[in-house]
């Protein structure tokens, strides 16, 4: 089967979550993604905290001697999950000769993606203006946190950007203090990654039609802020500054998260019309409270929603999340378990769809990863070859792609250019 991005070569200068996730998506449809990396900067390879951060690399009194680190140990599960099916070449871009080699790689590549700190590529003479001269139709993609402008030098992680964009402020229960609102996830990183992957494919489509390459900037800040479009419109048109709405809906009730049987177990239920309400009541065994006039119409239910939810919880608390889901869905009512990470692992639906990817990771044993995030009827890889060791594909890149002699490779390795 032909893969959708077969024949496309991507040089991947990204680290952390958003960039690697973007290029991994492209690898999943057959692009040849080559991670250009160096022992000098191990980033996520050394665990999420980087070298020294997670204790995975022994640190001597003078810091880490990177030439002595065993690279085969630096394929952590957390690194693997964002770097499946990529190649890796060791290349030290801080050396001028390393940059010469990079330019040679550009000549045989289609796309370059980076999320390095602002200005690094420019400093190295590897910005779009320079690369375009080496290969006219190259597509150069940068994924900054904030993008060119006043704060271009800021150091941020994805969680900061949830706070910066207004996302965290709006993510909580109405009574949740700002300090406790949800800002501990990498949702914005993933979103920026997915948007970037799609935009790269769009640019490749355009290049296929016109022969034209280009420069693309997608800031994670803007990619994340776009997800609050409705709240921003509410502000610009109605001058309303939105605050957290929690789990309830302003137009429908019941619509909430309810406590279930067990420790920290929850379900969600959503009822959208009178028909569904009638069915809901009969599934609950037509309890007396449901016959009270306070709950007769959507309007009155919304008005008495506190009491309504309390009554519903007397029923859900006697059942597990999956029981609530199965019983209500069988009656055509929207309901779901609030799944925790264990539930996800055992999720029948995900498993039936072939979502789970079991990989032998060597030192870490067999681990299950998230597989395809969507299903194409053709052009998508099935299964995975895992993530690369740093420099695993040096031979392929230096010998096959660039045609260097063994002597030259030896010299470059000695000089810590191939490093």
């Amino acid at each position, binding site marked *: 089967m032909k893969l*959708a*991005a077969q024949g496309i070569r991507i040089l991947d200068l990204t680290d952390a979550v958003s960039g690697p996730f973007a290029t991994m*998506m492209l690898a999943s449809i057959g692009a040849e993604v080559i991670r250009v990396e160096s022992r000098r900067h191990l980033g996520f390879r050394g665990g999420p905290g*980087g070298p020294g*951060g997670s204790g995975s690399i022994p640190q001597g009194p003078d810091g880490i001697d990177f030439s002595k680190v065993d690279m085969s140990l630096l394929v952590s599960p957390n690194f693997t999950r964002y770097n499946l099916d990529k190649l890796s070449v060791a290349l030290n871009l801080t050396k001028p000769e390393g940059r010469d080699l990079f330019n040679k790689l550009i000549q045989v590549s289609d796309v370059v993606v980076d999320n390095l700190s602002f200005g690094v590529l420019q400093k190295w003479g590897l910005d779009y203006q320079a690369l375009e001269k080496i290969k006219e139709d190259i597509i150069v993609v940068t994924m900054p946190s904030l*993008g*060119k402008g*006043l704060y271009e030098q800021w150091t941020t*992680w994805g969680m900061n950007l949830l*706070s910066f*964009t207004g996302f*965290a402020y709006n993510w909580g*229960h109405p009574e*949740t203090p700002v*300090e*406790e*609102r*949800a*800002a*501990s996830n*990498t949702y914005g990183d993933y*979103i920026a990654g*997915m948007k970037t992957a*799609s*935009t790269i*494919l769009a640019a490749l489509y*355009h290049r*296929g039609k016109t022969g034209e390459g*280009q420069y693309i900037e997608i800031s994670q*800040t803007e990619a994340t802020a776009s997800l609050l*479009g409705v709240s*921003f419109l509410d502000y*610009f048109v*109605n001058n309303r*500054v*939105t605050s957290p709405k929690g789990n309830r809906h302003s137009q429908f009730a019941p*619509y909430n*998260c309810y406590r279930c049987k067990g420790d920290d177990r*929850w379900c*969600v239920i*959503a009822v*959208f019309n009178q028909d569904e309400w009638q069915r809901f009541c009969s599934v609950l065994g037509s309890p007396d409270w449901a016959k009270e006039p306070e709950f007769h119409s959507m309007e009155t239910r919304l008005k008495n929603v506190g009491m309504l939810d309390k009554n519903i919880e007397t029923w859900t608390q006697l059942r597990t999340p999956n029981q609530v*889901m199965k019983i209500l*869905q069988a009656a055509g009512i*929207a309901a779901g378990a*609030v*799944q*925790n*990470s*264990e539930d996800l692992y055992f999720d029948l*639906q995900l498993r*039936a769809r072939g979502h789970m990817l079991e990989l032998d990771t060597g030192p870490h044993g067999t*681990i*299950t990863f*998230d597989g395809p995030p*969507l*299903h*194409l*009827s*053709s052009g998508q890889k099935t299964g995975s070859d895992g993530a690369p060791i740093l420099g695993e594909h040096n031979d392929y890149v230096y010998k096959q792609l660039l045609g260097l002699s063994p002597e030259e490779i030896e010299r470059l390795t000695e000089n810590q250019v191939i490093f």
Partner: protein
Amino acid sequence: MPDESSSVLSGLVVLDLTENRGLYAGKMLADLGADVIKIEKPVGSEARRIGPYKDDIPGPENSLYFINFNTNKRGITLNMEGPEGRDIFKQLVKRTDILVEDSEVGVMQSLGLDYPSLQELNPSLIMAAVTGFGQTGPYNTFKAPDIVSFAMGGLMNVNGPGDAAPVVAPCEQSHYSASIVSVFGIMAALLLRSTTGEGQLVDASAHEITATLTGGIMPYSNTSQIARRNGSQFGAVPGRIFPCKDGYVHILTIRPNHWVGFLEVVKMASPDISLIIGEEWYDAGFRNRNVDIIDALVTEFTMAHNKMEITEMCQAKDVPCTPVNTTADFAADPHIKERDFFIQIEHPVIGQHTYLRPPYRLSKTPCSINRPAPLLGQHNRDVYCDELGYSSDELSKLKAGGII
């Protein structure tokens, strides 16, 4: 039609049948330059009945929810429940590159408009079905509004305060995620089509993409630990939102150098704070075990300063820190303004309003907002008469017959 020849997807025609979870897919394609034709029932899309509304007055042309997701699309009406409407739809499909729909599994089939039937009319058609649970699997017919997909995808359980119920994200994020991943599938299919000539069905599930973005499966598989929610806390302590003099800041010390830099900031800015710091404080594990003491000290520091002061001091030492913004704060931010992230558009009912610029900044094929969200049936004449060749008389008859 305005000239869109310079956009990256210009020349592509998209039919958009979506009502909720697929709305943003068409929006992305329109922002990237495709001609997206939104097809609504003659009474109007369900999305027109979702608030907020301008001045809080409900009305089909007043829904800011509808406007958010449909700006840059054209709009026509079509009743696809009858054979005549379906026949017109099939004529449209023949001249379409991409079809996006988000109905429950089985609905398109019951209308005789499932992918195999449509592919017979147009072998190069790419169809994206954006559903709650996907086309296959035991839950594929389960009802799945945003809160169900978000809960089942696992992202809800790990978000919210540690001592309260899990909480869903604002603005229906499982819909956004499902739409965005479906566009990735559409783009992949488009690239493949340019060599094979054949279209395909893209099957996107809000549940499945949310599970991917939760990222809970690998850690559970690896450690058998169940992830818990814990407010804004992430990584090493301090790593959360802190109150300050004029609002809130979000400080992270994930890497060792972050903590070193943060210590310098605190010592410099608040020499009065008694920081009796031993070697063990450089160990993230030690800090995490003493979270209450450390967060209290950090709060003492942050409460003495303004959010931008703290942010600038931290940034000078490469410590990840930002202010915590409301939508209004963000809209007023000088960096965001400098980048022209907010633009003005003119809507016939809403009037002139501010809108978000598409985040994809392409140098040679820039995105542009070419038109406001369509009024109900605004482009019927353009599409049915100018493009499909119906006469004005025929158009009137279709209207009278409730077909459009």
